[in-house]
């Protein structure tokens, strides 16, 4: 596949992404979309939130604009700003404004990481007004009928400083994501990484061991995504124990003692 440059509102997902539903999340999302309701995805990292969004964008045939929020993300990063071009100022739409105009799905990943002033911009979009105020232009941008707002956040490492305010969270239809149960997770790992089912099962078992460690030294256990990574390494001929070390153990902790313990777990298992 060759690299190509696309305008963000023209990014349609053309082939069906692999997504394994764990509950009724697809139906609920479709209903919310049909009723112009914004959606909040909750869940730990690497459990399939982003993949779900890609799948829904494909299913609904809408372009998907993803913004990964970080702690310096301001309202103008979302809405747009004036830039200088050849001695003149020109207005450039931000990703949120583009999505509102084009009727795309705008997915704000890890919304709590963004600065507080961004929430204010989202609020009018997230209720029945469905409009984006663009102060600097003096314009109120009404959303296209196909526009959809989705945000995600991870309650796992929610700190006091990074909690979602009630006034924000009570505007959304919330979908809860978690790691799938063992059988399903093994199936996903096998399918995504093309390792044999027995090995996928062991990887899932290993993931459960690291998830048991959550709270006693680990912030977060191994996610499904990491299992897929490890599986891919194994499928390319890497020894399972070293694959787990590189793809999982090193990814979840830097603490030498914890690393050694996780390493002992994987060497016991394989």
């Amino acid at each position, binding site marked *: 596949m060759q690299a190509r440059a696309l305008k963000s509102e023209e990014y349609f997902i053309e082939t069906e992404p692999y997504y394994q539903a764990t509950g009724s999340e697809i139906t609920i999302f479709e209903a919310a979309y049909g009723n112009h309701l914004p959606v909040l995805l909750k869940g730990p990292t690497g459990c399939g939130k982003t993949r779900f969004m890609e799948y829904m964008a494909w299913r609904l045939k809408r372009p998907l604009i993803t913004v990964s929020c970080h702690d310096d993300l301001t309202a103008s990063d979302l809405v747009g700003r004036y830039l200088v071009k050849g001695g003149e100022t020109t207005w450039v739409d931000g990703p949120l404004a583009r999505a509102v105009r084009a009727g795309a799905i705008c997915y704000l990943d890890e919304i709590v990481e963004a600065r507080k002033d961004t929430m204010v911009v989202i609020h009018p979009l997230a209720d029945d007004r469905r409009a984006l105020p663009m102060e600097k232009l003096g314009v109120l941008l009404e959303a296209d009928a196909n526009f959809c707002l989705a945000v995600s956040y991870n309650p796992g490492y929610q700190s006091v400083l990074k909690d979602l305010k009630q006034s924000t969270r009570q505007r959304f239809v919330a979908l809860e994501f978690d790691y799938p149960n063992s059988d399903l997770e093994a199936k996903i790992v096998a399918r995504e990484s093309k390792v044999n089912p027995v090995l996928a099962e062991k990887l899932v078992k290993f993931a459960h061991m690291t998830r048991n460690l959550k709270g006693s030294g680990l912030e977060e256990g191994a996610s499904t995504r990491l299992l897929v990574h490890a599986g891919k390494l194994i499928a390319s001929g890497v020894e399972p124990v070293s694959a787990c070390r590189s793809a999982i153990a090193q990814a979840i902790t830097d603490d030498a*003692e914890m690393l050694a313990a996780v390493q002992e777990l994987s*060497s*016991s298992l394989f």
Partner: protein
Amino acid sequence: MADNAPLTVEQILQPLEAWLEVEFTFLQVHELAVALSGRSREEQDFFLSWIRRIASTNIQIAYQFAVRAIAGIAHMDQRVIAAWALHAMDTYDRGGLRPAIQVIEDVENFVQLSHAHAAGAVFEDISGILLNFVHGLSGRPLKLEQSDVPYTDSETLFLPAVIARMETAEDNFVLAKAMVAYQWAQTRFGSFRVDLAGTLANYENGEHALWQFHGLETLRLEACLQQELPGLYREMLRLKRTLGAAEMPEPWQRFAAMLAAPDASVMTSVSLLDAAYSAPPALPACYQGELRPDAVAQCMAARTEREKMHLRVKLAQMLEELPQQAQEKAPESPPKINVKAQQDQANELPSFDITLDDVPIAPPEGVKQLLTSVYLDFGEIPPEYLVPAGDGDYDLTQFEEQAKDPNDVWQGTYHEEGATLYPEWDHGRQHYRKNWCVMREKDVTPVFDDFVPQTLDKYSGLIKHLRRTFEAMRDEDRLYKRQAEGDEVDIDALVEAIADARDGSEMTDRLLMRMHRTERNVAVMFMVDMSGSTKGWINDAERESLILMCETLETLGDRYAIYGFSGITRKRCELFRIKQFDEPYNDAVQARISGIRPQDYTRMGFAIRHLSSLLNGVEARTKLLITLSDGKPDDYFDGYRSAYGIEDTRQALIEAKRQGIHPFCITIDKEGQEYLPHMYGAVNYVVIDEVRKLPLKVADIYRRLTT
């Protein structure tokens, strides 16, 4: 190289006589010196340093250690000797001289030597890793502790202090891991789901029966481990081969096959015990340790009682919190709670679904864990566990360790009840004394007098000045101009840039401006000396400084806490709560500041350790620990003074720094220059030469520290 030449008998004798105080103790050290003089200089230094370190704790132990260690030098590697010596000193700290001498005398038992030059796995080095390892395996959260032989009481796994049966350090670690995994398997695969004492009572020779039963269980658990942890199982087989384990005789081969069946349980072992009783004794596996039915029974009895009550109370709470309509449906019949264990795969721990009158509900916090633990004990959830506790007052506290009123404790004899224990650094030993300081938090008795208004009045000019200075330090949004990236166009920059471009020079790209929000994110802990020596005007100055500090910090908005410290001996280390982090600055806090009174002595290590842990509970980018003190660390009776006290304080400060806390000391001790640079570092202290200047200075120092 003259420096590395071995020491002569005389050179060894001299320090030995001094350390062991031969003049008074009349210990025979000459032979020791002769024996040691034949060693290499490196070995001599190693032994002499350990003898010195132990002698700083107790001379008798040091002497016994020297006698045995020098005789046994060929058999042990230095790491093991070090672990042995530390273990002896820990035992001395806990139990006194006699048990410590016992440890020294039982050196063979301690090391379990079977090889010359064993490179043992030392408990302290491996316990951290193995504890995480066992937490990663499923089931009940288990603890890991040190003991003479490996065994488990079903809640705590025990390992010996040093494992040295194998040749290499790696193999010894694997052996330790196998022991831990084996003990975990005992709890995980239900070895204790049987009344062992009752079963064994049927046999004439109970000890033999226990041995054979343990042998059967080992076979069964090995099969389980082969299923569950095949990688480890391979290693376990390798260990056995390395140790040259004999082939299993009949009928043990037959037993093994039966116990490896997928549906084998502890009952299979029990049913085979009759046959095994008359069979030749089971061959022990190197990792199986001991089976101690008494310890297990005791631990289980306490746990099942506790968990049953906890579960029933939790269920009752759950019912109460359910929406009203669910309860109104059937007011006369009690709700029926069902728990269904769902097993995704055979041999996996089940997950539990709770249903209330067949309607599934989300299990509350902690209930899943309880259910898992109960399941491990019984292999099911007994129905009586699912009866929600009635209206009566169920006193859960009888199952908890009770937090005693600190003031009551001194009336009893057991002074460590309900206290937090902290280690202390012994610089003579060059190691920590474990659980040495008995720390308690107490409240300062508030005094509602006119001290606060008087202070505010006395310093009213200064307070105004301080408020103004500190207001200027508050969070402020600053507009950054001429930025390459930003939210808005900087018209000034743009005009200049266009002019530049017309002029023919290069046009800059720094044309935007951006609002920058600085967030002050500071948490500060004030640790105030409340020792007896502060009596009088030092105490007044401290209290005035605190009032001024609070007034200014309120303007600034930094989070802060104030604790006083004092103590008398290691058994009575006290911290006085004056203001906690989440407490607002109000009358009560003012009254407590006013109520600060000189107490006993200046033991500092425990205070720094405890306050550091409190500071770590606060989320802040900058964490400060500011000590207000009037002199060097010093305590009554148990040697906490001069070098010992300074070194412990220094060690506690190093620990704090490692956790990302910036310690700082404000003292009025004019001799502070002599020891403070060593403790706090060259720039992290201030000596104030006049006591009455303290209130004026503290706020100023704080301002410099945080900008």
